[in-house]
């Protein structure tokens, strides 16, 4: 016979009260787990969707520039000492420490097409990388598959009177339009796109790239670190984070987290109150019994230990049930809120966290009732003496 036998027997005998106490805690823990799991899933979903919005890192050739003004007139700028980016350097991007965060590397090279009085910019791109980066592209026709095929931006097609299947000549070479981009409202509307190796050959820039757009998966990714790592890997290039996009993503994710913390705090408070009230009622009901314990020689610490042990056992069970219920709830909630299809598995940190949280909450809320019980005068508790 030890103190824990008393606690266990009491719980076994008072099943109704135990169920009530467990339910109170389960609601609190399940709500927190559901919230945390849902927010995590939503964060991933939002991050994933936002990562699809386009590039968040830009690599351009490093150059020295000089602003030219004379007599108050702005004569524009002059770029000199231009350091080209070698296509071989792109492999270094895949070897940086945060390479796992790099989703897409899209190199580009630019040249000019002149047709009579009309000029247009020609972009040599890797179509697979480009379409991965620009999910919003809609093509009337198909993307170029062959070296002699070209994709025309909406405005460029209008200016050169191009449509699907039309031939056009660039630097003496004949190309056929495989498709026309629907208007995007961006600079892409004015461009003609061809495969990057063709463009390099056409503009005599074999092995070189004009710029590189990179999409890094930004869910908790250290974008500043990635920028620094790429800069170190390719010293000849200027690497810039597209601050607005990055900051926007971070802000959105932080708002989600703040919301989840506020709601979780509120739910925890309610859970705490439920445990406190139930434990206090339980102690009041057991006044006589506590009086007996005290009269026959239990110390204050022994009585507290019995009550806190009961609270810990109940909280442990509530933590386990709460975690399972919360995960089930989160799964249901996320399926309603998003088209998130990520794999759900047991998160050991969340599981351990929710159980520890439940036990801590149970102990915290039971501490005062346990203290009150231990302070009871035995003669008053028994009332018969």
């Amino acid at each position, binding site marked *: *016979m*030890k*103190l824990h*036998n*008393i606690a266990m*027997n*009491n719980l*076994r*005998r*008072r099943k109704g009260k135990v169920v009530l106490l467990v339910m109170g805690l389960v609601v609190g823990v399940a709500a927190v787990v559901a919230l945390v799991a849902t927010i995590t899933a939503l964060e991933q979903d939002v991050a994933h969707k936002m990562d699809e919005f386009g590039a968040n890192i830009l690599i351009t050739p490093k150059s020295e520039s000089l602003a030219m003004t004379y007599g108050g007139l702005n004569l524009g700028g002059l770029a000199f000492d231009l350091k080209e980016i070698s296509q071989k350097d792109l492999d270094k991007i895949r070897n940086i420490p945060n390479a796992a965060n790099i989703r897409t590397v899209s190199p580009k090279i630019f040249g000019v097409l002149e047709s009579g009085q009309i000029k247009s910019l020609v972009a040599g791109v890797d179509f697979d990388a480009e379409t991965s980066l620009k999910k919003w592209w809609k093509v009337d026709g198909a993307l170029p598959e062959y070296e002699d095929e070209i994709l025309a931006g909406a405005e460029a097609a209008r200016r050169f009177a191009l449509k699907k299947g039309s031939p056009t000549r660039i630097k003496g070479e004949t190309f056929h339009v495989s498709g026309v981009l629907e208007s995007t409202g961006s600079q892409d509307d004015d461009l003609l796109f061809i495969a990057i190796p063709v463009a390099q050959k056409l503009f005599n820039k074999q092995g070189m790239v004009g710029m590189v757009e990179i999409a890094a998966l930004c869910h908790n990714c250290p974008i500043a670190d990635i920028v620094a790592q790429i800069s170190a890997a390719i010293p000849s290039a200027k690497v810039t984070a597209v601050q607005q996009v990055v900051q926007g993503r971070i802000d959105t994710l932080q708002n989600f987290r703040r919301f989840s913390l506020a709601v979780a705090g509120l739910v925890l408070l309610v859970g705490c109150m439920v445990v406190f009230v139930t434990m206090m009622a339980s102690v009041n009901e057991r006044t*006589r*019994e506590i*009086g*007996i*314990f*005290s*009269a*026959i*020689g*239990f*110390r*204050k*610490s*022994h009585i507290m230990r019995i009550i806190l042990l009961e609270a810990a056992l109940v909280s442990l069970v509530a933590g386990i049930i709460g975690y399972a219920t919360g995960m089930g709830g989160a799964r249901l909630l996320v399926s309603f809120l998003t088209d998130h299809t990520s794999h759900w598995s047991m998160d050991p940190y969340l599981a351990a966290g929710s159980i520890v949280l439940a036990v801590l909450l149970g102990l915290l809320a039971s501490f005062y009732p346990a203290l009150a019980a231990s302070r009871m*005068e*035995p*003669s008053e508790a*028994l009332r*018969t*003496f």
Partner: protein
Amino acid sequence: MSYIIADGVRKEFGEGDAKVVAVKRIDMTIEQGQFIAIMGESGAGKSTLLSLLGGLLSPTLGKILIGGVDIYSLNRDKLADFRREYIGFIFQSFQLVPYLSVVENVQLPLAVTHHKESAKLALAVGALERVGLKDKAFRLPNQISGGEQERVAIARAIVNEPPMLFADEPTGNLDSRNSAEVMNLLKRLNSEGQTIVMVTHSNHNALYADCIVHIADGEIGDWQAQKSAEPWKTAVM
């Protein structure tokens, strides 16, 4: 040999106009191995006196010495240890813990000691054997009769073999047959050397004691030493 000494003990409850003097002034001495019956009208202060003597209620004035120890000079935990080691309580209405079996109830005072589990069980079974309830060790309190519950309470009081037993109306809820059984049991324990202080309303039960202390208005009215009338022989007959 003086074992329990009440020296100028007074107990007041409440303050100001609401103040009630439960015990005005008690000076008494109980010898080791004595069986004392405390009698008096309801509200005379006998249960309060028992609480004071048993270390359950601190006096407003005066002191209680047990075996030379001023028990109320001990801190709360030390006093709890003292009660566990030296005093067995038998409460009115049995006061068993309903969700513990008979043998677990008997083991309660041992729950916070360092005995081995097997030793605790052996002591509890031994105590139950002494009160004739070994065969009902694993029943719950509500599965045995009132008389048996009182005997379980006695077994719990004697399980760690304290030198003193304090009993408050131990037969208050029992019929005459069960009362006689319980009183005989107490008498037997006393004859084995246990000091017993018992509060009772019953003149018949008081005959089991060596000495009857009459309390009136919080004071000792009469101290009546008696030769044993041996009522247990009548009860057995």
